[in-house]
């Protein structure tokens, strides 16, 4: 297939394209799903992370 001699290498080539497409389709289907309110713990975490960054 595609000039590739070995079916397992052809399979790897196809799976690379297929898994990339899977990511695109999944991302588009769930584009607006999973929105979450920012919780207190998120803000607290971000403030501490800012502090960690400053120290570097």
């Amino acid at each position, binding site marked *: 297939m*595609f000039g590739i001699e070995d079916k397992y290498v052809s399979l790897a080539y196809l799976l690379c394209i297929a898994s990339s497409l899977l990511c695109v389709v999944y991302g588009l289907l769930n584009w607006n799903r999973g929105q979450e309110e920012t919780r207190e713990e998120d803000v607290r975490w971000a403030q501490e992370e800012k502090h960690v960054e400053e120290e570097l």
Partner: protein
Amino acid sequence: MLAQSGVGLTQILVVVLYLLVVVYLGWLGYSRTKTATDYLVAGRKIHPFVMAMSYGATFISTSAIVGFGGVAGLFGMSVLWLTFCNIFVGIFIAFVVLAPPARRMGHRLDAHTFPELLGRRYESKFVQVFAGLVIFLFIPLYAAAVLIGGCEFISTQFNIDYNVALLVFSVIIAAYVVMGGLKGVMYSDALQGSIMFLGMLILLIFTYAKLGGVTRAHTRLTDLAPLVPGSLQSIGHRGWTAMPAFGFGDPKYNLWWIVISTITLGVGIGVLAQPQLVVRFMTVKSRRELNRAVAVGGVFIIIMTGVAFTVGSLSNAYLANYGDPMTGRVAKMLDEDKGLAVLQIMTKNDAGVWTEVEGKMAPVKLFEGELDAAAQEAGIRTGRSISVVYAGGSADQIIPTYITKAMPTWFGLLFLLTLLAAAMSTLSSQFHAVGTSIGRDVYEQLTERHEHSIIVNRTGIIIGIIIAMLWSYYARGGYIIARATAIFFGLCASAFLPAFIGGLFWKRITRPAAIASMVAGFVVTAFWLLFVKAAEAGDIGLVQKLTGGQRSILANSHNWPVVDPLVVALPVSVIVAVVVSLLTKPPSQEHMSRCFK
């Protein structure tokens, strides 16, 4: 020196301009609060393109492009199994399955590093310090792989000494790190990701176009199978579009175990427990950003490693058809119909006499070159060889050699920026991990003090950069970039993955189980690298003293000396985690509700 090299004013100006833009973006991000954390503090969302590009630029480095691309040039397209893992495991599984709970748990437990996440999940100082030390000690090895990848290209493209390239490259990286590169400014990363994407996309299109299209290019590569050098044929190489011979118990299966266990599994699975990548998950605002990043990330990775591995393999087809001609006498005809032969390389001396270059043979595709009558009478033929021959026997030189010989000069410059971007984004996250692991995870935990933490962080980073430079100076040759990367990824998988995944999804996993699993994964990996895996054990040298000169304690058991530590260490680490969990007291309900709520 510069006058003798290929470095011109244009090259220097473009690189300086690029660095100025990156530094400006970094400064802009710093002064106007545009790091990922700032977005989260302000409760704003990061554009999914920026998030995915940032993650991708951190994930993919010169190691993947130059190191593993070169491995593909040597071993062929079977390495594409790693690209499949990069996309399916490194993006899909990582973002869809692991990232949401890792992000939530990280925020709940107020964890800011990967060791801290593990330490707080298991309420164990030992876990955090141990993980911090492993990262601090071994991440410079991976950083060295990234440095070597950049320097191999710079030295080839601009015809300058490798050590000069290493010095210049290290100074640029150190300056970038010092000037705010560690702060994870999303727009700098996104710019770097975009340059990488553009560079690799052009490389793919150019290569397929030069070789006559997708199918024609692959067919031309398939036809070259008889040119595989004897040393590779004897370990199972059957051509650049074929899988290596599969089996166990015979040296002719060695290559299959190298490609699948070290190259594919070591790196393909190890990505899930990469400390610098796990922390990225925590910086997003919600699961929606992760979902969106999956779409961009999936495309980004195929254009990175998919292209590097395909072009690396196809470089053989290009060079065997359009590379610099070689002259010599046919020592062995491999395929009369296809004109494939082994050539004893010969050169004409000043007196016009053809003489053999001693010991220099090359597998070539013959063609009718312009030879004078005397040469024809002497039986001299012309041919073009495969990538590794033009690369002087080093897989790490295959991609740089191909870019220099096949691509236009302007592309060499774009590719330099691509590699600079790939190296800078990955190295900054690696040194970020070095600093936090030694400061926050080791020093603060052991001393229970915070006041000198900044000094420890920065000293740790400087030590990390120096160690990475020393590795890059001393460890060259073979396919060291891919091997060094695989060691770090495999070590992370074996030592951390069961504790990390167990901690996210299995409430029954206990502190003693996590400790035992991490120590077992580390010890088995270290043992395997010191005494069993011939490539590494042989170089370290301890095993020779033990066995009287053998490079592996299993030297006489075929295939074992090329099997990656991960194949043994990860199952051991998983089994230990499960068995010890079932034998020890479950964690308190109170702590579980704090972790999972």
